[in-house]
């Protein structure tokens, strides 16, 4: 486990208690293979090295992740230890609540895990590249060596242009093929004491195909900040409004308005958060920005901190991207030594900004900004009630701005070249450029930075897509477009996108695509509100009926009703958009459903399968009573 020099800042929490936050909450690289034999000594060391010797409630998730990374699971004793340590403070937490948090996050395990754990990505693009074959192979391997190897599935890993992808003990392996799986088999058979995943397997590639202003920018560290510092702090809000910058995460909220709200809020502390929880299937541009343009991202965050008066910042990094941690940490450390982060930045009194990295643990919902804040506080990621908005009351109640990785890159660009200049490249009110992650049926998948007047058709030509049947723009929560709409430009007025662009040619059964997306939402629903918690289940089960040719017109009616209900009645964007895949296919190409309705007047039922759940229950109960 790596150690870092601890720099500490004082932090006054809600109860007006002075606490200290270590500079980098998360600095542990995963063990491959996982270690065994967790003892109290390990936990004490972890707490001393990374949590200032006192585990706080808000650090709980980071602590659990650190245990998970090293040992592969979080055992009963570790849970009890956490509960005991935190309960010495004012706000205690019971073991069961901690188990409830572990259950919320996909990558946290509370059952014993073998030393190697492979997560296979289940995005539709992985399946299109032959994931099923690898799944079968690894399942056989896991059956052969159940004590050494486990394989499970995970939602999109952000490697759609280089799939099928997997994570080995949390570290990415792109482009699975026969030789890679043989290499994994060898590791399982030979059980080496230490495995360097990055050296043994291919590593994720940037795969940038087309650059424009953001990706061409070679930022000299500090230059954007210096330019902003020639004006008073609030001065930059004018630039931002002149730039008419809108958030790049998908919702397209005006950045200037969000910042203004936060700047206007009266509070002793404010917070800037970079949303790097890139979970929308088919999106991987933030991974590339973090990997190759981190200076722009941090510079944008630092400018945000100065503008709104924040001194604390977080990068909320999705678990799947933890391989970037050492690099990101080094970038932060370097900027601290350059006085571009820390106290009195570049000599300006009161310009303090302390940046931390916080890891996610596998929950798509944490990309929603208020759920992300809950997760930052170490809780289950349930979206908050709004108002108040995060810019009014966010992390620990302090006014907080949450922006996407790409948005902060744009901020650095606005700072460097001016708001008017940024806005000069515009199409129908969408200013600047947009970075797209393109995958699926095309010759040149990868990263494309494009102006906002680019149409879907233009993009398809650029990437070498042929016989395109449909395109999913903006990920599963976005739109499924058919050729009739390919003339539309991808911008905020027409086809809005957070950066995911998946191409499907005529050989694809779009029903399977929609089913994959619907199952994704079912897996990722946080379970807070009725429409989404139950609705996602109803949608998934109804599509199962179609897949088995058991469905009828009534089921189409159920789908339609559920689409309407979830759209209007759900608590957050996840529920409101979870039925979009079904909606777009049902409205655009209803034949994909009609073809799967039952043609028999008598539905054939596999009685063995239908009664399997009851039988399992019976056996389980019988087992219990024999004990």
């Amino acid at each position, binding site marked *: 486990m790596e150690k870092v020099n601890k720099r500490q800042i004082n932090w006054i929490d809600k109860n007006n208690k002075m606490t200290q936050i270590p500079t980098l909450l998360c600095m542990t690289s995963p063990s491959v293979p996982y270690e065994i034999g967790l003892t109290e000594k390990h936990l004490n060391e972890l707490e001393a090295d990374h949590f200032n010797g006192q585990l706080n409630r808000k650090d709980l998730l980071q602590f659990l992740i650190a245990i998970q990374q090293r040992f592969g699971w979080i055992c009963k004793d570790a849970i009890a230890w956490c509960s005991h340590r935190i309960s010495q403070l004012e706000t205690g937490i019971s073991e069961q609540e901690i188990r409830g948090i572990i259950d919320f996050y996909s990558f946290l395990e509370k059952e014993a895990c073998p030393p190697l754990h492979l997560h296979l990505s289940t995005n539709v693009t992985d399946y299109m590249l032959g994931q099923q074959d690898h799944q079968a192979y690894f399942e056989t391997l896991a059956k052969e060596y159940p004590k050494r190897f486990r394989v499970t599935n995970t939602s999109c890993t952000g490697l759609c242009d280089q799939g099928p992808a997997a994570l080995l003990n949390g570290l990415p392996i792109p482009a699975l093929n026969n030789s890679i799986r043989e290499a994994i088999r060898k590791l399982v058979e030979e059980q080496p004491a230490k495995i360097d995943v990055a050296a043994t397997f291919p590593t994720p590639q940037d795969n940038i195909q087309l650059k424009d202003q953001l990706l061409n920018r070679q930022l000299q560290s500090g230059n954007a900040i210096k330019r902003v510092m020639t004006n008073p702090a609030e001065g930059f809000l004018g630039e931002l409004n002149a730039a008419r910058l809108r958030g790049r995460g998908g919702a397209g909220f005006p950045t200037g308005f969000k910042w203004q709200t936060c700047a206007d809020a009266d509070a002793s502390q404010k917070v800037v958060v970079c949303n790097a929880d890139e979970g929308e299937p088919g999106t991987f541009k933030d991974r590339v920005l973090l990997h190759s343009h981190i200076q722009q991202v941090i510079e944008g965050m630092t400018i945000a901190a100065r503008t709104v008066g924040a001194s604390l910042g977080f990068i909320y990094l999705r678990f799947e991207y933890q391989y970037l941690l050492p690099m990101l940490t080094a970038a932060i450390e370097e900027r601290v030594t350059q006085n571009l982060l820390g106290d009195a930045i570049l000599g300006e009194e009161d310009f303090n900004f302390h940046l931390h990295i916080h890891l996610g643990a596998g929950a798509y919902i944490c990309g929603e900004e208020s759920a992300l804040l809950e997760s930052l506080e170490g809780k289950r990621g349930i979206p908050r009630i709004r108002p108040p908005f995060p810019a009014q009351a966010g992390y620990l109640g302090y006014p907080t701005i949450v922006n996407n990785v790409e948005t902060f890159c744009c901020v650095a660009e606005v700072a460097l070249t001016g708001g008017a200049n940024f806005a000069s490249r515009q199409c129908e009110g969408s200013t600047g450029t947009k970075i797209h992650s393109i995958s699926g049926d095309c010759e040149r998948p990868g990263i494309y930075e494009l102006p906002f007047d680019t149409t879907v058709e233009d993009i398809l030509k650029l990437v070498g897509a042929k016989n395109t049947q449909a395109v999913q723009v903006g990920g599963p929560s976005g739109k499924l477009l058919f050729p009739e709409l390919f003339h539309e430009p991808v911008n905020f007025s027409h086809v809005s996108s957070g950066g995911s662009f998946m191409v499907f040619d005529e050989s694809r059964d779009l029903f399977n695509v929609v089913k994959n997306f619907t199952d994704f939402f079912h897996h990722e629903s946080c379970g807070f509100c*009725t429409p989404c918690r139950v609705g996602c289940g109803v949608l998934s089960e109804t599509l199962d009926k179609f897949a088995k040719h058991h469905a009828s017109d009534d089921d189409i009616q159920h789908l339609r009703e559920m689409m309407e209900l979830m759209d*209007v009645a759900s608590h957050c964007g996840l529920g409101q958009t979870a039925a979009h895949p079904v909606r777009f296919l049902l409205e655009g190409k209803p034949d994909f459903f009609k073809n799967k309705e039952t043609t028999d007047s008598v539905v054939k039922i596999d009685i063995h399968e239908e009664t399997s759940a009851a039988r399992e229950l019976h056996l389980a109960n019988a087992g219990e009573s024999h004990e």
Partner: protein
Amino acid sequence: MSDQTIPCIELNGKPIPFQAGESIMQAATQAGVYIPHLCHHPDVSPHGSCRVCIVKVNGRVKASCITPAEEGAVVESECDEIRQLRKRLIQMLFVEGNHFCPSCEMSGQCQLQALAYDLNMLDTHFDHFYPNRAIDCTHPDIILDRDRCINCDLCVRASAQIDNKQALSLGGRGQQTHLQANCESGLLKDSGIESQDKAMHICPVGALLPKNNHYPQITGERIYDKAPISEVGNVRPENHQGDQTKGPIS
């Protein structure tokens, strides 16, 4: 203060005054208007999860318990569209759990069942999930029957905000979200909950039940035997006292 200065919303065509900071639900309750709900209770903070309290606010569907009342807002809580959506939500809660009204101790006192009647729910519409959920009978006085739980979080909030115990919480994610006892064992007996706690009595269904006081109301004397929930919705079932001596046949 003259009438003109009191801010009002228009609820189902009638003006309803409100205080700054109040939700639509609070304003309606103050004025004696019942907006159907399950996860809301006036004694604890709002949650906004069941979505049964949806209303139309200036044409847009909102959860009235977490939507601030605003001057001049036009609110409809009983139009056909809202009632239809509400009925579907109730049906979804029925298919999600394992609800068996005929034998349930809370029948006639259950808000979920009463709303189903009020919305003229004749079937559950969707395929049942038939989940396999654990029942906790470890407590000497209380049963936690998760089959009937609708994850409304009322007992969680009541325990924290009224009983000052934090005996319960919701854990897990998605369809696996479940009510849990906050203690090492995760069992109700160790959670510190007691039968006189508000958490115990605030349950709108029958997930938290007393062990020694089954069927406390005689059929015919139960709260929703007397009047539909649309008429007595703002009376808390836990405060209802029917005549203990006579039933419909006596």
